[in-house]
């Protein structure tokens, strides 16, 4: 695969690289949402209830 021409290589990197970065960070975003809703911040009200 090292003998890809420069244009094909560049376009592959642009599409897979940029697309992959966007997709992976979107997955991380979803994971953060999951984390913050599973472990919500402990507020003063929650402290009092405890």
């Amino acid at each position, binding site marked *: 695969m090292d003998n890809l021409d420069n244009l094909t290589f560049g376009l592959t990197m642009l599409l897979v*690289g940029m697309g992959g970065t966007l997709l992976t960070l979107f997955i991380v975003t979803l994971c953060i949402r999951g984390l*913050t809703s599973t472990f919500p911040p402990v507020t003063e009200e929650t402290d009092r209830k405890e």
Partner: protein
Amino acid sequence: MLQAILDGLSALSSGVLHLASNGGPNLVMLTIAGIMFYLAIAKDVEPLLLLPIAFGCFLANLPFSEVMDTGGVLKTMYDFGIGNELFPLLIFVGIGSMTDFSPLLAEPKLLLFGAAGQLGIFATLLLALFLLPFVPGIDPSQIKATAVSIASIGACDGPTVIYVSNLFAGLGRIDPAMVGALAVAAYSYMALVPIIQPPIMRLMTTEKERAVKMPTVKGTVSKTALIAFPLVVTLITGLIAPKGLPLMGMIMLGNFMKVTGAVPRLAKASENEIANIATLFLGLAIGGTMAGAQFLKMQTLLVFSLGLVAIIIDTVGGLLLGKLWYLLSGGKMNPLIGAAGISAYPMAARLVQNEGQRWNKQNFLLMHAMGANTGGQVGSVMAAAIMLSVLKGLGIIP
């Protein structure tokens, strides 16, 4: 006796004679070292790294300098910590322990700006692939790796650039002398972000868009979420882009030690002693690679030109996503926040805050911008990790 004295004097004057007769490239590099000293000391331009780089350059360009010969002090540092990518990774442990990801966890959608802010890497790669065949002195078999190394300046993150370019230098895919030029370009443009970004922000946004007031970032983040975050990001990187695991793993290790609070001594050492020592040795060794004869080439000029293009496209990418978000949200998102989606932390976030306040005195964009900026840090490392993994998939690197 007289002959011995003359021989001794001749040896003492040989350096001056060499510099005067055929030390042109060294003189140019000594001048460049002088400019870097000036920028670091008088202008406060990334002094932590620019000063040791300049001193390494200064040492390497004195006539008959042996600092980069086998066994020389800078060559030993190079082999010890750059040839095997150790120093950039140690600096990443320090960066992780200095970074506060809570604004990002409070507004996770801001991470998408961290992705858009990496557009410069991939767009510059395409541009470099187009231009490099026209640059004299570049081996055609090294064009792809050279283009990837130049494009990595778009990560706006010095250690990432050094890690990626040195990986290729170790494999014989790029000229090792390029690593110094790439590192200096990366750190110089990171320092110049306050000059590069504001005109692009003003050019790409309207006054109305810049004045959009953002709501306060809601609530705090639980300690459990903060502790789980570095583990989750490391896990995802390991699963999707394992070639970049050393990069992401080290930055997240530093952050993990900080947020757990279980190892304050290690977290403090990572933030201070480890990062400082690695920065000093890395800077000196990189400066040592800047010997005149190897540094003064057409490809160095291309590195600096395309490096600037990469940072500009990064900013454009973030602002374009900001403008799209502004439209989709019915004018509730200030598109300036997109410009903070690069890795220059916390400089880019502060610039967004200043620019936003300039157009609306009641506007406080700092927390949103900090979220996007830490997103940019994760994004730049993730982009490098993905790039390396794709390159492995394409058979470019083992």
